[in-house]
């Protein structure tokens, strides 16, 4: 009899590291996503009952896989749909042990499952949640919290998406060369959406979803290792590492928000930045620029400050121009305006910002009001700056960022007093 807690630890570690691999393997070979999920959940339950009594198996993943497969088999028997299914299961059982030698990359199964989750048939806002559930085994409640959706609604959306995968016969395969690049974009976008939820808005940080950024980096790392010839996969990983490297520096010791320009560069994670720089160089060698490489390059220009340099604002504006050409995103246009403010001053930037004023997509977008407030304050238009800061404060979810806007407003009022 071994310690129940130890068995639970091993099961949890196996779940953390191998859930997606096991699920992908079962889903592709044994009849689809939902039966695989049910069987795997049963196998984990069985492990928690069995391991404390019988001891932890030598290869826990293989034990879980064989157990899950038996569950599927039982169910198939009950449903009287035996036959060639058994042959497939027998074949799967034979390579079970061999399969769990833990490759560094995703392996075909998980990669294929990711492509299925980000299939065009799946609603765009469910793709990232689906990947988190299928590959990392996160439960619906945690995913719901991260994406600010009611847990019941998130469960329902995930169930519906899985039905769609089954009913629409969304292939659990890696797309062929014709489709690969386009479909990879959807996978990358879903991973980045996960990171963005974990990161909060680009200026803020939020403890609630902090773990999600790490999950996104894990996914991107695994994906980049699986697709070494796809510079955008490498670019995405670089981008997220640059941003994550500054995580600690976004708060001072009192827990107050510190904007990028004022961050203590010695508090940036230089190992992560070094890795990001190396990844970006490797991606650029393919000479196929894309959205994520450009965003990573902008991040690279920002971190020049760590060796006492200043960001090259001309280069940053040029990178945003190129990024805007590719994406047409109003958020990119907004960031370009902010960079322009550093290059040519607040008055020129406010002229550029005026072109974005009517865009409904920016109306309730906190960083828009924060950028606008900053430019107005620097241009000496204090009353308008106060209004814009108040609007930004009313739109943020982050109490530290809300306090920061309050401090800025007090500073402006002090000038008028």
């Amino acid at each position, binding site marked *: 009899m071994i310690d129940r807690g130890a068995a639970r630890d091993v099961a949890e570690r196996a779940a953390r590291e191998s859930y997606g691999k096991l699920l992908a393997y079962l889903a592709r070979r044994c009849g689809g996503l939902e039966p695989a999920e049910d069987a795997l959940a049963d196998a984990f339950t069985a492990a928690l009952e069995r391991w404390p009594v019988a001891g932890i198996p030598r290869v826990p993943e293989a034990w879980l896989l064989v157990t899950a497969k038996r569950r599927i088999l039982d169910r198939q028997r009950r449903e009287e749909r035996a036959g060639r299914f058994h042959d497939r299961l027998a074949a799967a059982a034979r390579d079970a042990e061999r399969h769990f030698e833990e490759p560094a990359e995703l392996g075909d199964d998980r990669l294929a499952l990711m492509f299925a989750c980000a299939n065009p048939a799946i609603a765009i806002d469910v793709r990232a949640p689906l990947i988190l559930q299928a590959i990392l085994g996160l439960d619906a409640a945690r995913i719901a919290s991260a994406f600010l959706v009611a847990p019941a609604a998130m469960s329902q959306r995930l169930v519906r998406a899985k039905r769609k995968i089954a009913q629409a016969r969304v292939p659990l395969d890696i797309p062929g060369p014709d489709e690969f690049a386009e479909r990879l974009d959807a996978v990358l976008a879903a991973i980045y959406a996960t990171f963005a939820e974990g990161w909060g808005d680009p200026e803020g940080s939020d403890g609630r979803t902090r773990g999600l950024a790490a999950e996104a980096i894990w996914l991107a790392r695994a994906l980049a290792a699986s697709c070494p010839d796809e510079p955008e996969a490498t670019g995405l990983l670089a981008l997220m590492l640059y941003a994550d490297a500054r995580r600690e520096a976004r708060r001072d010791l009192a827990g107050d928000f510190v904007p990028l320009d004022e961050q203590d560069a010695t508090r940036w994670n230089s190992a992560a930045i070094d890795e990001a720089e190396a990844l970006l160089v490797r991606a650029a060698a393919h000479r196929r620029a894309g959205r994520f490489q450009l965003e990573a390059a902008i991040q690279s220009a920002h971190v020049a400050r760590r060796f006492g340099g200043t960001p090259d604002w001309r280069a940053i504006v040029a990178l945003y121009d190129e990024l805007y050409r590719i994406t047409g995103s109003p958020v990119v246009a907004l960031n370009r305006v902010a960079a322009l403010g550093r290059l040519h001053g607040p008055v020129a930037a406010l002229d550029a910002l005026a072109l974005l004023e009517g865009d409904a997509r920016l109306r309730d977008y906190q960083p828009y009001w924060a950028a606008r407030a900053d430019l107005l304050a620097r241009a000496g238009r204090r009353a308008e700056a106060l209004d814009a800061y108040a609007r930004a*404060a009313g739109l*943020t979810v982050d*109490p530290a960022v*809300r*306090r920061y*806007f309050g401090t800025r407003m007090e500073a402006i009022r002090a000038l008028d007093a």
Partner: protein
Amino acid sequence: MKYMLMLFFDEAGWGAMSEEETTRAIGAYAAYTSALREAGVYAGGDRLGPVASATTVKVGSDGKTSVLDGPYAETKEQLGGYYLIDVPDMDAALAWAARCPCASHGTVEVRPLMVMVPAPV
């Protein structure tokens, strides 16, 4: 679709703040309220009087009334205010709830309103 955001927080925490902190907290709520208005989703809202001013009324099955001093439930965090917002769905309601200052110093409960149709006369 209308939703009510019910703001639960510890009243004592408000009382214990310095004048400067109180000014800031009021400013944060004012900013949030104006963001709701500017977004065109504001449908009402107020702060409630202190819990000490609450009185509870109940009529038993025997028809006897009872009137008691104090709130319906004694809890650490009390209903202290509400917002009514008009947004397309629960996702949007939750996004606004998260922006409410109370979400970080207390708890915000979000409930859809069931709109009553007046009975035919």
